[in-house]
């Protein structure tokens, strides 16, 4: 027998209102736990995003001493080309570096420097980014080399911090999700208890089991969904609030948050996942309550 959606939603809404304090508690717990899940997911995606950025971009820069002669610079170029670690190298003249500095530095700092102060450089992409230290070893101290820079250590620290945060978030979230399920289970149990007379009459006159169960299950699902909605708002607030929606430009290359920036689809995916988890938590909690306490 088909159960009318109108009936189910009407009954579920009545129950939710009758039990509103417990309902709010359940919804908030779902919201907090799902917000944690959502943030952990954003963080994880952002971190892998940033790693991709760092790994595909310039991985080592060999700065040429501003005072070095052209043959010295050329020989560095030649050695880089022959190095087994290097995939490609691009030569950037002093003018190029000066122009880049103009974009990155504030005007007063720029004024304190002159074109001649800027070293020319080789921007290199490595065959394997983890070999950056070897490149550093090979070229540091060579004649004409001012210095070798690679972002290795920063990335590693960043990644491990994010990794740990991610696990902390997720484990706290799992514990909270469990307690959210139990809270939902309890609200449904109270709803069943409040309506036991109705349920017994329904059984007596021949209502089908699903007809009796569905409003209670819908109630749990709505609690999960409302909690998830709040969590989605939190995730979106996080996304815009800390600037994860920034577009990558040369200007914000040094900004770690900007490096982690995510596209709309990734955020939408996270939100959908949060909503699905919310519904699942609600349905599982109420299904347990219905099985355990609704004797049909």
């Amino acid at each position: 027998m088909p159960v009318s959606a109108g009936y189910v939603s009407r009954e579920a809404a009545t129950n939710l209102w009758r039990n509103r304090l417990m309902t709010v508690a359940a919804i908030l717990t779902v919201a907090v736990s799902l917000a944690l899940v959502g943030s952990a997911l954003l963080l994880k995606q952002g971190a892998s995003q940033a790693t991709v950025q760092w790994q595909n971009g310039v991985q080592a820069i060999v700065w040429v001493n501003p005072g070095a002669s052209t043959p010295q610079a050329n020989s560095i170029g030649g050695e880089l080309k022959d190095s087994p670690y290097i995939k490609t190298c691009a030569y950037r003249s002093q003018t190029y570096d000066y122009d880049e500095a103009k974009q990155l530095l504030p005007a007063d700092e720029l004024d304190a420097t002159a074109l001649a102060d800027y070293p020319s450089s080789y921007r290199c992409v490595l065959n394997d980014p983890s070999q950056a230290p070897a490149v550093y070893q090979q070229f540091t101290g060579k004649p004409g080399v001012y210095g070798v820079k690679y972002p290795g250590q920063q990335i590693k620290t960043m990644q491990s911090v994010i990794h740990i945060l991610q696990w902390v978030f997720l484990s706290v979230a799992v514990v909270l999700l469990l307690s959210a399920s139990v809270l939902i289970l309890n609200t449904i149990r109270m709803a069943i208890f409040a309506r036991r007379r109705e349920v017994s009459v329904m059984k007596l006159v021949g209502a089908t089991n699903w007809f009796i169960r569905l409003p209670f299950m819908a109630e749990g699902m709505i609690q999960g969904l409302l909690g998830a909605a709040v969590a989605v708002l939190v995730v979106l607030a996080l996304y815009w609030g800390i600037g994860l929606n920034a577009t990558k430009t040369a200007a914000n290359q040094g900004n770690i948050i900007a490096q982690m920036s995510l596209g709309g689809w990734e955020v939408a995916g996270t939100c959908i996942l949060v909503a699905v988890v919310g519904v699942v938590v609600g349905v599982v909690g109420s299904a347990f309550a219905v099985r355990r306490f609704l004797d049909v």
Partner: protein
Amino acid sequence: MIKFQDVTKTYKGATVALRDFCVDIDKGEFVFLVGPSGSGKTTFIRLLLREEMPSSGRIWEAGKEIGHLPKWRIPYLRRNIGCVFQDFRLLPNKSVFENVAFALEVIGRPKHVIAAQVPQVLDLVGLAKKRDNLPHELSGGEQQRVAVARAFVNRPLILLADEPTGNLDPTTSLGIMRLLDRINRTGTTVIVATHDAGMVDQMRRRVIELDRGVLVRDQPHGVYGIDSATAAAGAGSPTGAMAEQAPADEYPDSIAART
């Protein structure tokens, strides 16, 4: 309509509620189920509703054997059975109309059917004017009429009543019995478990007596007990509106059958 064949029901292996119980009830019969407390009357009703399963034996209802009914079919079985209890079991926060309508709503009847059938059945039980009252605003007799209306609104094949007059005074009880009799005349099989000796004696319908789970008497046009039978016979023809239902010339048969 209803057939019990060697039905035994034991609870937790020890208490025997019914023992080798056989009975045949035809469509349109009116049956009183009598016997002291613990004699198995309620078990009989619970078996009919399939709230319990027989420990052994077979039960047919409306041509179907209900022992092998899968669980999901039970609600459909119950739609053929109306039920009335001593404690009315009305929903306190619903009006008379809503209480009766609820029985149709929860089996998915469309609104226009509810709008047509509920006033009709409220008319039958004589509560058309109280349709918007809440149960606590009604007398016990009126509440039981609502319960009967709810049991009958779906036009079940069988109406079960477990001590329907247990909480009511004799005059009110008579009214409820008249109502059940009226429902019986529409062709519905009515089974009433009762301790109300006066009522049974007055109505002179088939009486099935149980004692400690065993069928001790099955008598057409019977009376509540042997003593009251003698009294009733001595008093002559029973009175009351339902008495005319039972032709007077059958009384000697019933008395003969009992002895």
